[in-house]
């Protein structure tokens, strides 16, 4: 089955996932169309991070199906590299390579994994660092950068693989309030360029502004989902209402 852009770029169907005896995802389904930005919100431990980690096979699943561009992610015969070229991921703790400069961090995967020519990758990496507003920081090591700067290097590093989808796992949760904004601006630029984005976030204001669709998860299920306006102004489920009243 070949994928065409009129079908969901990510399709999650009835996914179940347990860590030992604890069932973290209890039958989750959602679809993401190309160019869409979706935000997943919910209390901690509700399974939202686990869900997006399953999308690029960092976690496996017990049952159900996840496809990215029509390709089943949890097929044991899956070429993981093919999947990871399509899906970029940014983490809460940035997870940069501490022994490499910002520029080297961005260049490493295209050069070492895709074996693209170094000069070409370097030009692209410099352009990406400019794009995330880090011109002049190319030769700084992660330890010399602020949290917000490191996170933007991490975004550039992911973009260097030319992914079709970007996953953001609570990428501002470890940042102080002033630097949150610089990272959010970067994500907003990306979304505006038409990048498909899946965000797990606690930034309600940002979710409301940027998302095409908001999902609320609690205890391993999707309780409610709706376009942001409807979701934030007229939440239907009592659990959503209780959550929103606490965080807004």
């Amino acid at each position, binding site marked *: 089955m070949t994928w065409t852009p009129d079908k969901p770029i990510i399709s999650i169907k009835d996914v179940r996932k347990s860590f030992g005896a604890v069932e973290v995802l209890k039958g989750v389904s959602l679809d993401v169309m190309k160019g869409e930005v979706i935000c997943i919100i919910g209390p901690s431990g509700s399974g939202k991070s686990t869900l997006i980690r399953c999308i690029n096979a960092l976690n496996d699943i017990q049952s159900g199906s996840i496809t990215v561009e029509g390709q089943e992610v949890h097929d044991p015969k899956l070429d993981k590299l093919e999947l990871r*070229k399509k899906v970029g991921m940014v983490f809460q703790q940035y*997870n940069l390579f*501490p*022994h490499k400069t910002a520029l080297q961090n961005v260049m490493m995967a295209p050069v070492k994994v895709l074996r693209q020519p170094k000069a070409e990758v370097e030009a692209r990496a410099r352009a990406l660092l400019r794009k995330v507003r880090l011109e002049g920081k190319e030769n700084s*090591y992660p330890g010399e*950068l602020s949290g917000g700067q490191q996170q933007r290097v991490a975004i550039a590093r*992911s973009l260097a*693989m030319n992914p079709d989808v970007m996953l953001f796992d609570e990428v501002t949760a470890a940042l102080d309030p002033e630097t949150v904004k610089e990272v959010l601006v970067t994500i907003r630029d990306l979304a505006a360029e038409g990048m498909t984005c899946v965000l797990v976030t606690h930034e309600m204001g940002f979710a409301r502004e940027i998302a095409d669709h908001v999902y609320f998860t609690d205890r391993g299920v999707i309780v409610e989902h709706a376009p942001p306006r409807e979701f934030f102004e007229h939440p239907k489920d009592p659990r959503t209402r209780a959550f929103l009243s606490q965080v807004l």
Partner: protein
Amino acid sequence: MEQFFTWLYQEQGINLTIGYDSYDRGLFLAGIWMTVKLSVLSVLFSLVIGALGAWIQGSPSALMRGLVGAFIAFFRNTPPLVQLYFFYFAVGTVLRHTGENGLPQPLVSGFGWAVISLSLFAGSLNVEIFRSGIEAVPRATVEAASALGFNRLQTYLHVVLPLALRISLPSLGTNLVNLVKTTSLAYAIAVPEVLYVSAQIWSDQLNVREMMNVVLLTYIVLVAVLVWGLHRWEKSMRIPGFGT
């Protein structure tokens, strides 16, 4: 120079033949060179064995992990001198070929066995040292590499090993210093390294006390050079803003 050592012997009774006798000096310098060769080769091979063993220890195959575990247990729990004898006298007498004169010839020389034996001995300890370094690399960093499409080997080579090496360097240094000192065991299988040639000299010249001092001083200098090199290495690998 030679006059000074002759004077030292005749007037002071300190008989340093390597100072005025060119034969003894040649022998002694060859001994130092042999010790340096033994040290450099064993250090390099032991590092390769350490990195390779630590990589296999992270392998999904229980059989491979078990093999590495057995290798470490064997070389860590037996004395290096016994290992050297084992290779030279037990394995060495099996590994023979028939020479041109029709007599059995050893395939591996005493020097070869010394390098093999010392590399395996120090390498087994390096596996454990590297492993402790690898375990200190955050899982999240490894995960970021796999999310970027790195496979297990690429992650190990480009991310895990460079970081683990920096973490392991202090204990690695201790082990390598010990390795250089352990090369003196090659004496036991007649590899003409510093201690061996010194014993040859003192048997001929009856200057044990003088030569013992020279031998100790030689090792002090050799180890000092190694320690200096390791410090330089550590410094060159220091990452701004990482660790302390």
